[in-house]
């Protein structure tokens, strides 16, 4: 509701009005002001007097379930007296080069006698059409949201100049001038705190930190889940045909901050801006920043970008218009819409929650309603079947995730609705979870879980202060309106104004109203969490309840306790905790002030009373000073508007009769921050619960209207406003009311001050605005908790406004002294009071609107977005057949995967499995020439496009130790392995023997492994390999070692034998090493002299003596070197001689003979003898 200054309100809301209107068309110079009358003082600029004919405005129309609004319009006609308008526009066009198109137009409203400076701005719109006919112009305008209908996010591009490798950090291109880097804040998951840019080359996203005119530098390759590649450029290819390098637009911020940036280009809280083609260029004067920064910490905490839900947009491009982007991608998900204010500014408001019970700005009765259209039960607008596509992949250009959700409570009562599909590109798997979606959907379900109702309503022109998004309460008798969806009796329900039109001439204010009919059911976010908050959340801060309450064995004892809270719910002084189940006995009365939060690590049973009536935001008093038309705002609370009773303005006092001509003097409306408790975006981060509101106190009312004399003197101050109720938040692991439990957070009531007497008229000032109730937030920690019944247990009433005196029956009246005139109609009696404005709020029940119960979402860890994985194959069966193992399974649909991978392990542990092969089909034969037990797992694989990594299904079987055995019936028996493996210790060695299976008898080799420990086999080393059924393994010690056997062929191996611990074995004994010596080891002999020749030379004997080894020696002599012509006489004996024969004197024969001694275990030793034979020369 528009807040009008007093003097304007007096004129605008009077029953008898003399309206005036002025339209300004904004030009740089000589802006024309077109007036409806020529009697308006001090109109600035070039005034076209009395030419304005019929201004009428239609506001934007909000469509909450679609998250969008239709653009509002404003049309006025003007009489082109003496062609004044024609001349003015022609002059602008010809001398200033300024056309009428898209000029900003402002409509000001006032009244006869009012200076233009007191006129109120009513509309600000933009010229879209101009028509002329019959001496009249008709100018049509659209609201500022039309400015949002510009294209945004069209990426710039260039081409690759030269070839680059996959590792290049400098990328040569032709022109970088239109590429811009953007400063990242802390909310960015990629390159936070850095100033970087991104571009796409092929299917790769590349981040850069610098650029020259023709290259990007500091490149990080393959970001945003892409794979770095090399790119080849053919030097003969023309530049414009080379690989395209396209800007990659990436934004990651809290939603409200992002929306503000996209509208204005300004990154809030920094001096940084977005590139021009990333934003809509809306002047900051036309964006109400305070709406964005104050939207609530669950949606944006301007001091910490990471504290609220962060929107992540990657690869934005070619949005047809910014308006659609803002509405569908941001506002809808935030549960908000963008109102257009009278000054043309765009704002941000939450959608009204729980509309049927929401706190109104005015109550419309038969007194205000001119006509009421049909009330339609909008069955077509019931939504209980949702499908949300999210986590957008900019490379694949599709959504990766899909979440479906059905509100069965709604579906059971009203039938399942048509599927409502939302697509959210900004919800990213790195940032959001299913719990995020569930909470966001709650803001839609508030209004659409039950059939909403719509109606059209025309009200008196004095209510042209109503605005789109305002909540009004329709309160009419059942003779006027009947509704079976509500309770019996008169119709009394809140509605949201979704569109408003105002006709200046007729005064008609036409409203499109929307209302819900039931509170939606509450559903836990998932199925299996006992508690979302960790134990150490409780008691981390605050005061133990044991220090302020008498608690015995978890039971609060009867008594009255006073707990002081704090203005901020986040302050430790507001927090009280208890670590266990807690029961409040009947007779417990806990009085709270400000905001109080109980954090109970257990189940709460509430029998006693918790009271916070009038202990919230303070009411405001009127000091009775200042100008007569000064007003004083109340203290806005979390829920609940407040407005007191009007005062009286005396305009004239008739000297003789004492008649007072008076007008009602409006009181100030104080709007709360919310019409009803919105659905919160909660998140658990470690031991911290994020998204809590900081203040749940109810509104403190503003003063009532004053009594002002005809001389502008303040005769009496308005009554003080009432204090709001305290706010209360309870976080616990279960909650139930006992029979006598209650929570009361009512606002404080007000009464009118004592009357004053002016002349002989008695008049009461207006009672102050009543305090509105504090809000109750119940957060259930654990989704298996039941939903508590709150009916009749929670009281959230506004105070009552009790006004003394007889209210004026009209906004202006003549008050008569009593008993000068007897006419009871003209003289309602003394004392008098101001008019009962429809905006007075008294005794409203917000026990539904001021309550929000939510489950705390489980702390899910957001995951990186991935491509959709293929379905897993099923029903894997493995069986042993000749030559290998045969596997069969049920594959996914043929187009759902590329291949089935088969993995095998020799033990039932997937970590040890290796790839056995892959196939497109339902069977695979694993060739194992030696056969052998294997454990198998299979999975489907997709070889994705776009250069991504492959995608895999879940394993079949799923468990890492649940592999499918190829020998199911008797796992552990191995027909293919060696059997009958035995070892016998012998002197100097071990004798092994085994038997081979039939297959391995034909093919394959045997491997003997040895290890110093009994296990594991994996540490054993190969001691022998060959084909045999037995082996003597020599040993030089008697140490026990452990042995395994297995068969092998072509890389395939059998299971080892033994399967577990190795076979222990050792040499039974060890003898000394075999050695041999020859004595002598040097023999010589001569041929003698004189002739006759030939002569024979024979050496003496040498004897070889072996030592060590195993007796049973053999001897073998042979020449090691030389020995030509020399004969070894006993080559197989230990003792031998050597001889030689020569015909010539002077001959020499030499050699080294070696005797090889072999013992009975085939050990060998050597003894060498040097032999010299000579024949003396005669010379």
């Amino acid at each position, binding site marked *: 509701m528009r807040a009008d200054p007093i003097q304007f309100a007096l004129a605008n809301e009077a029953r008898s009005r003399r309206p005036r209107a002025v339209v300004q068309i904004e030009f740089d110079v000589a802006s024309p002001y077109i007036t409806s009358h020529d009697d308006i003082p001090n109109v600035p600029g070039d005034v076209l007097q009395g030419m304005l004919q019929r201004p009428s405005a239609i506001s934007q129309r909000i469509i909450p379930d679609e998250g969008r609004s239709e653009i509002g319009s404003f049309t006025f006609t003007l009489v082109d007296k003496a062609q004044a308008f024609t001349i003015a526009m022609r002059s602008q066009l010809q001398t200033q080069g300024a056309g009428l198109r898209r000029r900003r137009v402002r409509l000001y409203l006032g009244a006869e006698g009012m200076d233009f400076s007191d006129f109120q701005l009513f509309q600000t719109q933009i010229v879209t059409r101009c028509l002329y006919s019959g001496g009249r112009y008709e100018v049509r305008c659209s609201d500022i949201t039309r400015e949002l209908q510009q294209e945004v996010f069209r990426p710039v591009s260039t081409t690759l100049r030269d070839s680059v490798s996959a590792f290049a950090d400098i990328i040569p291109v032709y022109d970088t001038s239109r590429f811009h880097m953007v400063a990242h804040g802390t909310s960015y998951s990629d390159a936070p705190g850095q100033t970087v840019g991104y571009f796409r080359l092929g299917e790769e996203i590349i981040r850069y930190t610098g650029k020259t005119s023709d290259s990007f530098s500091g490149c990080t390759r393959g970001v945003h889940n892409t794979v770095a590649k090399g790119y080849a450029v053919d030097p003969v290819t023309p530049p414009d045909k080379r690989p395209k390098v396209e800007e990659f637009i990436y934004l990651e911020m809290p939603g409200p901050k992002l929306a503000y940036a996209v509208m204005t280009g300004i990154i809030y809280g920094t001096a940084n801006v977005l590139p021009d083609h990333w934003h809509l260029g809306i002047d900051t004067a036309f964006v109400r920043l305070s709406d964005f920064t104050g939207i609530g910490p669950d949606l944006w905490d301007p001091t910490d970008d990471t504290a609220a839900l962060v929107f992540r947009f990657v690869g934005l491009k070619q949005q047809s218009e910014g308006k659609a982007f803002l509405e569908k991608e941001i506002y809808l998900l935030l549960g908000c819409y963008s109102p257009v204010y009278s000054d043309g500014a765009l704002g941000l408001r939450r959608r009204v929650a729980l509309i049927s019970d929401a706190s109104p700005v005015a109550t419309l009765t*038969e007194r205000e309603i001119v006509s009421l259209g049909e009330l339609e039960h909008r069955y077509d607008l019931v939504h209980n079947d949702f499908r949300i596509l999210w986590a957008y992949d900019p490379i694949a250009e599709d959504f990766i995730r899909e979440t479906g959700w059905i509100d069965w409570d709604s579906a059971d009562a009203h039938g399942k609705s048509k599927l409502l599909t939302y697509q959210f590109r900004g919800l990213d798997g790195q940032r959001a979870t299913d719990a995020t979606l569930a909470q966001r959907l709650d803001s839609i379900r508030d209004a659409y879980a039950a059939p909403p109702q719509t109606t059209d309503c025309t009200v008196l022109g004095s209510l042209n202060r109503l605005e789109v998004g305002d909540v009004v309460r329709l309160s009419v008798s059942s003779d006027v309106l009947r509704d079976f969806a509500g309770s019996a009796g008169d119709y009394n329900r809140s509605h949201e104004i979704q569109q408003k039109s105002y006709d200046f001439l007729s005064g008609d204010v036409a409203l499109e109203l929307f209302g819900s009919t039931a509170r939606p059911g509450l559903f836990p976010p998932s199925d299996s969490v006992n508690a979302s908050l960790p134990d150490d959340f409780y008691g981390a801060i605050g005061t133990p309840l044991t220090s302020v309450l008498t608690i015995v064995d978890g039971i609060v004892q009867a008594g009255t306790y006073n707990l002081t809270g704090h203005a901020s719910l986040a302050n430790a002084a507001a927090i009280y905790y208890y670590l266990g189940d807690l029961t409040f006995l009947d007779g417990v009365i806990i009085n709270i002030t400000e905001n109080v939060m109980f954090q109970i690590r257990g189940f709460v049973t509430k029998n006693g009373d918790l009271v916070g009536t009038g202990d919230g935001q303070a009411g405001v008093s009127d000091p009775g000073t200042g100008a007569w038309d000064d007003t004083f705002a109340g203290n806005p609370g979390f829920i609940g508007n407040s407005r007191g009773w009007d005062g009286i303005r005396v305009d004239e006092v008739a000297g003789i009769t004492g008649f007072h001509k008076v007008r009602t003097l409006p009181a100030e409306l104080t709007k709360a921050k919310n019409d009803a408790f919105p659905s919160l975006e909660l998140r658990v981060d470690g031991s911290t619960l994020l998204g809590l509101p900081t203040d749940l106190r109810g509104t403190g009312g503003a003063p009532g209207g004053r009594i002002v004399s005809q001389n502008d003197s303040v005769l009496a101050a308005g009554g003080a406003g009432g204090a709001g109720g305290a706010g209360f938040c309870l976080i616990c692991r279960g909650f139930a009311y006992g029979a006598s439990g209650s929570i009361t957070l009512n606002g404080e009531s007000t009464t009118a001050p004592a009357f004053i007497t002016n002349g002989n008229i008695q008049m009461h000032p207006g009672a102050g605005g009543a305090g509105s109730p504090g809000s109750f937030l119940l957060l259930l920690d654990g989704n298996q908790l039941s939903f508590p019944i709150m009916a009749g247990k929670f009281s959230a009433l506004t105070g009552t406004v009790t006004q003394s005196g007889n209210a004026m029956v009209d906004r202006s009246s003549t008050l008569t002294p009593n008993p000068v005139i007897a006419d009871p109609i003209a003289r309602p009696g003394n004392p008098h009071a101001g008019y009962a404005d429809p905006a007075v709020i008294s005794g409203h029940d917000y026990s539904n609107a001021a309550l929000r119960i939510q489950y705390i979402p489980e702390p899910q860890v957001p995951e990186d977005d991935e491509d959709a994985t293929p379905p897993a194959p099923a029903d894997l069966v493995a069986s042993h057949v000749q030559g290998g193992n045969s596997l069969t399974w049920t594959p996914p649909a043929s187009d759902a995967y590329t291949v089935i991978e088969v993995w095998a392990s020799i033990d039932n542990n997937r970590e040890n499995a290796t790839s056995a092969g892959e196939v497109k089909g339902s069977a695979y034969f694993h060739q194992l020439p030696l056969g052998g037990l294997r454990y198998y797992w299979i999975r489907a694989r997709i070889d994705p496009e776009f250069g991504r990594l492959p995608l895999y299904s879940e394993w079949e079987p799923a468990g890492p130790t649940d592999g499918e055995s190829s020998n199911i019936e008797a796992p552990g028996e191995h027909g293919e392995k060696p059997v009958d493996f035995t070892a016998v210790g012998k002197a100097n060695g071990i004798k092994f023997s085994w038997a081979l299976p039939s297959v391995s008898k034909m093919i394959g080799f045997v491997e003997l492994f040895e290890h110093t420990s009994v296990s594991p086999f994996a540490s054993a080393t190969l001691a022998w390999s060959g084909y045999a059924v037995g082996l003597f393994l020599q040993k030089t010690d008697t140490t026990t070692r452990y042995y395994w056997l297995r068969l092998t062929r072509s890389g395939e191996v059998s299971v080892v034998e033994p399967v577990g611990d190795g076979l222990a074995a050792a040499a039974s004994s060890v003898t000394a090493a075999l050695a041999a010596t020859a004595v002598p080891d040097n023999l010589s002999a001569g041929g003698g002299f004189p002739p006759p020749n030939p002569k024979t030379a024979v050496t003496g004997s040498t004897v070889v003596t072996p030592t060590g080894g195993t007796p049973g020696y053999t001897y073998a002599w042979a020449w090691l070197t030389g020995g030509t012509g020399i004969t070894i006489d006993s080559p197989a004996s230990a003792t031998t001689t050597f001889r030689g024969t020569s015909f010539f004197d002077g001959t020499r024969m030499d050699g080294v003979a070696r005797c090889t001694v072999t013992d009975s275990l085939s050990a060998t030793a050597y003894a060498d003898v040097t032999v010299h034979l000579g024949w003396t020369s005669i010379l």
Partner: protein
Amino acid sequence: MGWAFYIARVDLAPSHVAETTYEIPLVITGDGFQFIGKDLKTKQKSISGVVETNYFGRERIWRITLEPIQEQEAAVLREFLASTADGQPFTFDARGTPDMPLAEMTVVRDDEGASEELFIKGLYGERMIQFGFDVREA
């Protein structure tokens, strides 16, 4: 007797010059000055009968009927009526004279076209014409 000042623009009478201001005497019949004004206002009435009124002003319109004149004297009147038909504001006084104005006001023509009624008068069949038109206070 009344009079008007106007700027001659079309259907010029003999010897008259375009874009020249002329004074014309207007002999109005006894009942030829009828006020037919109206208030410019809208009203809304709520279901319970509360009425709100938007009052924007009033329209002051007079229907003027002139005494019949001989046809040969009608040229100037025709010039006056034709020149003011386009909404030209002109000075008008239904009762006074330029020297002694009684109710001088600026008006514009409000009719959809002046009326012109032909009479045949007397034994000699004189042709007489009676003009009528509406003016609205500008």
